[in-house]
């Protein structure tokens, strides 16, 4: 019995206009979307290589101990499927001797129109268009049969109601998913033959397979939602209006509204304000350090050794040398203390800010999860390394790069500094450790480590679970809806 109805549903769907429309949409949108994004990725990768090359050229032979190294993030290969936050994520870090590395976004040569309208990447096509298609396939599955009076003919036979609902889900899903999979295969062929990206390359296949599985689950959820609409309405026209309303609310509006609600519920100060605050604190502490050094100078040179500033600068007697050594040691200790203090205070400030940001982000995310499109979007962008996780990953890479350059260069410098409280200026001598040759130093290069799939799964398991639950919920609700459905 179930098989009979499933076959009928498949045949009916194949003969319908919506199948023709759906197949054309898939075959056109999916491969073209992948191809266009691949070309764009190629361009970004070329830009990245070019920038790295220019940096190396320009810096060669001039790698001093206070050198500001530049690190660049290569574009993510999987951004072919989801452009995500690419235009917003930082991709450049500049290290600094004082520990305050700067991150920024290096703008490539963009296309203003595509920023205006957004990218028609795989994520967009599936999230917006294929989702509508899923709804179209099932929105009047039950209500339409009621209108055509075939539903009562079916129910006058010994057919349990759950079989009717299950058959409609399976039949319509199968007919939608096959042209979709074919178009994905076409897209993959375009990718692999381009020479730019190979989906079977190491490390790419598994994330891609995850994206594909999640996509199939998402499309099924939309089919089940359509089926639910069909069991809650009794005329096709009402089903259609309901479908449009729900699609607009879930796909278009809600994901945009939730972050706005989050900013209202939990406001966070802007980045510039935070940076200025940090700047201020650093400045204050550095001023404090300066005062402390000068007091130390007075303490050691003037009080202890009885020397004057002029004597220090002009004489090279034994007592001067002794004084310099004592001061040098005390100063090193003082400097270190302040360095640690500055680092820890700024870190604390950064951490607090990050926490607030994360809290707001969590509110936005959790609110948005009412829509399955949000869950789907989060999974795909995070797996493609174009999501919010990539920001954290980039910060970690930047931190690591800063440490790398510190070890290679900054720690190799020696600063001597002399200045009493009474003078305005100070007398500095900057040297590097013996053996350090800026012309022979390799230009520091950031070897970017991408996020691992397991880390992505640790945050995204919830969206994967939600997609699964959406399916269960929509199907169960359809079943219940049909149990009490008036078939006459």
């Amino acid at each position, binding site marked *: 019995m179930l098989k009979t109805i499933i076959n009928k549903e498949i*045949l009916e769907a194949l003969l319908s206009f919506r199948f023709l429309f759906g197949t054309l949409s898939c075959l056109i949108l999916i491969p073209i979307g992948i191809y266009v994004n691949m070309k764009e990725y190629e361009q970004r990768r070329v830009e990245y290589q070019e920038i790295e090359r220019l940096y190396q050229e320009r810096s060669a032979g001039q790698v001093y101990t206070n050198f500001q190294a530049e690190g660049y993030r290569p574009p993510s290969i999987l951004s072919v499927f989801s452009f995500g936050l690419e235009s917003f994520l930082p991709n450049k870090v500049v290290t600094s001797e004082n520990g305050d590395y700067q991150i920024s976004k290096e703008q490539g040569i963009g296309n203003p129109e595509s920023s205006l309208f957004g990218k028609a990447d795989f994520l967009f096509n599936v999230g917006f268009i294929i989702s509508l298609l899923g709804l179209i396939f099932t929105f009047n599955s039950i209500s339409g049969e009621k209108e055509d009076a075939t539903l009562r003919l079916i129910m006058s036979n010994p057919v349990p109601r759950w079989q009717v609902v299950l058959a409609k889900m399976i039949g319509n899903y199968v007919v939608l998913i096959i042209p979709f999979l074919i178009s994905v295969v076409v897209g993959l062929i375009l990718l692999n033959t381009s020479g730019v990206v190979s989906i079977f390359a190491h490390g790419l296949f598994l994330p891609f397979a995850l994206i594909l599985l999640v996509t199939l689950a998402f499309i099924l959820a939309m089919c089940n939602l359509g089926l639910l609409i069909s069991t809650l309405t009794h005329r096709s026209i009402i089903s259609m209006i309901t479908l449009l309303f729900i699609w607009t609310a879930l796909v278009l509006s809600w994901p945009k509204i939730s972050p706005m609600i989050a900013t209202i519920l939990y406001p966070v100060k802007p980045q510039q304000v935070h940076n200025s605050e940090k700047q201020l604190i650093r400045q204050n502490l550095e001023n404090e350090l300066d005062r402390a050094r000068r007091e130390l100078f007075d303490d050691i040179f003037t009080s202890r050794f009885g020397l004057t500033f002029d004597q220090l600068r002009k004489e090279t007697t034994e007592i001067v040398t002794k004084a310099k050594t004592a001061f040098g040691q005390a100063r090193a200790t003082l400097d270190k203390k302040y360095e640690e203090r500055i680092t820890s205070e700024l870190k604390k400030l950064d951490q607090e800010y990050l926490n607030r940001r994360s809290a707001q982000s969590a509110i936005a995310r959790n609110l948005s999860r009412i829509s399955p499109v949000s869950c789907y979007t989060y999974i795909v962008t995070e797996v493609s390394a174009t999501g919010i996780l990539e920001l954290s990953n980039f910060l970690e890479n930047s931190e690591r790069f800063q440490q790398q350059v510190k070890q290679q260069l900054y720690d190799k410098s020696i600063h001597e500094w002399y200045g009493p409280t009474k003078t305005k200026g100070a007398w500095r001598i900057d040297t590097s450790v013996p053996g350090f040759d800026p012309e022979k130093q390799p230009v520091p290069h950031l070897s970017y480590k991408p996020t691992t799939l397991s880390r992505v799964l640790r945050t995204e398991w919830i969206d994967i679970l939600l997609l699964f639950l959406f399916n269960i919920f929509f199907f169960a609700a359809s079943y219940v809806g049909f149990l009490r459905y008036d078939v006459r």
Partner: protein
Amino acid sequence: MAMLNMVLKADDLSKRYEDGVLALDHLNLGVRPGEVYCLLGANGAGKTTTINLFLNFIPPTTGTCYIKGIDVTKDPLEAKKYVSFVSENVMLYGNFTARQNLEFFAKLGGKTNLAKEQYYQVMRRVSLQEKAFEQRVKTYSKGMRQKLGISIAIIKDAPAILLDEPTSGLDPKAAEEFLEILTELKSEGKAILMSTHDIFRAKEIGDRVGIMKEGRLVMERTREDLQFEDLVKIYIDYMKSEPLTA
């Protein structure tokens, strides 16, 4: 009247809808094998509600419907094996051919191993044109769809048949052909319950005729009775009389 071998039986059947309307008021009705029972009455008198209760599309407020002795609310899946249904105004699956429609419903009704020629035979029996067998149903006229609906009922070969306004929209020739098929089915021993407005043909084909008014079976006559009475006059008189409820 032997109530025991009634294929279709309504026992003290009542139905009150949520909005308070009493659609059926203690209906008692039975159809034996080889008998045609015609149910007449105004729209809203309860004819379609009776059929819907037999098919368990709605639950009764009180009383029971039995198909071949099976309580349709207690064991609907079993009961539905023994009844065929010809609905009014059925569009069927427009993109399927007549045979594909017939095949689908035949399988639902339990006949899973029929040959194409068997489907054709049933369609010939209802005088559906040969060239229409493999044409898409959406091109069909109402009469053709009605014939296909009847063939769907015939192929199930169930002992009871429920028909809701089967001749409405049929031209006189098609209506006469339909009566012939009904007569054949009757002689095959099927119990047939038919709701209709076609008082003239009800008189012709009905072994028994019942008139429903405001949910009650107010009158029942056998064929013999009607030879001596004018059904049309009886009907009009009943309808013109005072409403049963205030």
